[in-house]
């Protein structure tokens, strides 16, 4: 047997070298993955700052020689992006607030109380996760129509104010709260709603934050439903729909279209950076009991 295998210092050094190599390889792969993801976004920003001829040039420009910032101003002035952004913000806020409230209440009930048909109802909630929204789009449209909500912002938001994902995520979070906490609260005279508000909610705040991020991403990027609902209602069109009107079909306007796309992506990029931890937590939530 070689002597260095018996030498603990040599073994530790070898392990350290292996760990370092493993770290370097991991980071190299992660860096490569990040580049693959970020490169198209970077090129979108670069293209939005190029002239039409530069956009179509080969080899492509990887940096704008003389940035054409006017495309961003044009996106706002020609495309009325300011109006669409306001609509998107209102729509997103309504959906997020509404879906958080309903998810908290439903998840709390499923996690805490016993009631008839609880298992059946829970199965139904989970089953809705398997149904794409597009399948229910006609029924939802007819419902909104019969409620005379067409032409209002509520039409864009009501169908999304209940989220099975949110209920699932928060139920798991409430189940993680020790039963003893509730028993102690009840002994101290706490009612169910007071317990929810004072004890349970503060404990599941991280999961709520994670759900807020997911709901915001979903609401902001909606396309099909707002497109359909605002067919007769230009005043409530959202940013994603407004971007389509920038699609001028001319090369001269390609920079404006790309500028619009960058503008639409910025709020979500900021959200991703700021709430990165919450988003990761939401994706791994429930993985470990």
């Amino acid at each position, binding site marked *: 047997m070689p002597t260095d295998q018996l030498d603990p210092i040599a073994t530790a050094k070898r392990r350290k070298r292996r760990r370092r190599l493993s770290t370097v390889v991991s980071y190299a792969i992660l860096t490569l993955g990040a580049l693959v993801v970020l490169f198209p976004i970077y090129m979108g920003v670069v293209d939005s700052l190029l002239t039409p001829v530069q956009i179509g040039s080969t080899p492509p420009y990887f940096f704008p020689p003389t940035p054409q910032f006017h495309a961003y101003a044009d996106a706002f002035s020609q495309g009325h992006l300011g109006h669409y952004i306001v609509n998107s913000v209102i729509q997103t806020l309504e959906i997020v607030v509404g879906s958080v409230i309903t998810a908290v209440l439903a998840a709390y009930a499923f996690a805490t109380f016993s009631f008839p048909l609880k298992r059946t109802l829970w199965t139904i909630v989970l089953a809705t996760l398997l149904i794409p929204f597009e399948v229910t789009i006609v029924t939802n449209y007819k419902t909104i129509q019969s409620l005379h909500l067409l032409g209002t912002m509520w039409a864009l938001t009501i169908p999304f104010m209940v989220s099975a994902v949110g209920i699932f995520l928060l139920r798991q979070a409430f189940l993680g709260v020790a039963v003893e906490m509730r028993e102690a609260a009840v002994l101290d005279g706490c009612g169910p709603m007071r317990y929810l508000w004072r004890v349970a909610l503060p404990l599941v705040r991280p999961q709520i934050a994670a759900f807020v991020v997911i709901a915001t991403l979903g609401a902001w990027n909606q396309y*099909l439903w707002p497109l359909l609902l605002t067919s007769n209602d230009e005043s409530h069109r959202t940013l994603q729909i407004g971007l389509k009107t920038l699609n001028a079909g001319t090369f001269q306007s390609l920079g404006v279209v790309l500028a619009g796309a960058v503008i639409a992506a910025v709020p979500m990029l900021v959200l991703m950076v700021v709430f990165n931890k919450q988003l990761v937590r939401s994706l791994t939530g429930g993985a470990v009991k």
Partner: protein
Amino acid sequence: MKPMNVIKSIAGTAVLASSAVVVSAASSLPASAASVNAAACATSALTNASGKVHITFYEATAGANLTEIQKLVTAFNNSQNKVVVQDINQPGGYVATWNAYTLSGGNGANVIMDDMFNTQAHVDSQLTLPIADCIAATGFKTSDYLPKTIVQQTIGGQVQALPYSMSAPVLYYNKQAFAAAHLAPLSMTKPITIAQMVADAKALKNAGYSDGMSLKNDPWWLQIWNGMANQYFVNNQNGRAGRATAATFNNASSLSLLTQLQTMTKGGYAKEFSATGTGLAAYDNLFDISSNKSGMSIDTSAALGTIAGYLPMFKNVTLGVAPLPQISASDKGGVQPGGNALSISSKNTTAENAASWAFIQYLESAENLATWDAATGYVPITTAEAKTSTISKLWSKHPEYKVAYTAVSTGTANNATVGPDLGNFNQVSTDIGNALAHLLTDNAATPSSVIANAQSAATADIQSYNASIN
């Protein structure tokens, strides 16, 4: 299929299902023409209306086209005091516009601009009024329209929608590339054959243009090439002598065409491009020309304004435009028109019908058509429009704008040359687009099996659609 396409497909199917609900007796179609009901569009209803009649107009234009249509709507509103048109632009394109209109039960709009090839769906839905009613009510003459456009919009013996914007595919090429490959400039009136196009692509490749030709996999062209060869694309005379029940494009002409197209991609002197690209990807075939990789491409004439404004920015490009090549030199069908047509809602009151028709007539006056086409790149649709000073000046200065007009004007207007009449046209087009993409990217694919499979898929979709509306 891409995930987004799957979602669109699901959504489209859902909307189709909803539209099927409103269909009752539209199944056995047309040939025996329903009688024209001129009273439905009586102009007296507009004259007698108290106050102004407000109507809504759905259109799916974008950019410069949107600006122009808005100008025309404003001009119409200012030109008279009986009708007020509200233009509501639909950013989702024709399919989304029709879906929105269908979901509204025909109440969303009074006038709708839609794809020329979607008119059978209008008839099946019973949500649009046969425009023949208004034509009869006012004695409007359609004899001045290019015959193919009227034959194309005639279903059940009645003109269902009035053709508005017309385009046709043309061959765009770089004259400098042709010169470098020792090829003569192409004629602007006489189409070359596909065989000649293949030879030219090969010459371009040999001259250093590495891709030879940029070839989009557009399903529209297969149906046009069939029409040029006087072949029916679907049975029952392209669905115009009775409802189509099967696709029939698996014929010698298609086989010859696909074999030659695949020869180009296999030999490396044509590069395949997606016909469904959006944003920058929609222009990849043109970027291929501007970057000196290819010397020619086929694209719609509706893009001529865009292309003519862009490609010449590059010093290495001198734009040339030629008619769409044909499979055989003996093909006499000419090119079939594409574009859009204007329909009127069947849910209108008589006054709204008359107001809608007044608006359509305004848009379709020779001068206004000329203004629209000159601003957008579409092709004149009536001979009167073609004779206006606006179009004369345009053609005199830019003769390439006349190429598509000449190509559509050429050949007989009959059920074969005007293309298929299908209620689920988009679905069938998707089948063909998928087949073309497969053929042009997989060298192991054989043209005979690709065309046979595409025909089977299209037939299954046609039969499924027919069953749904029954």
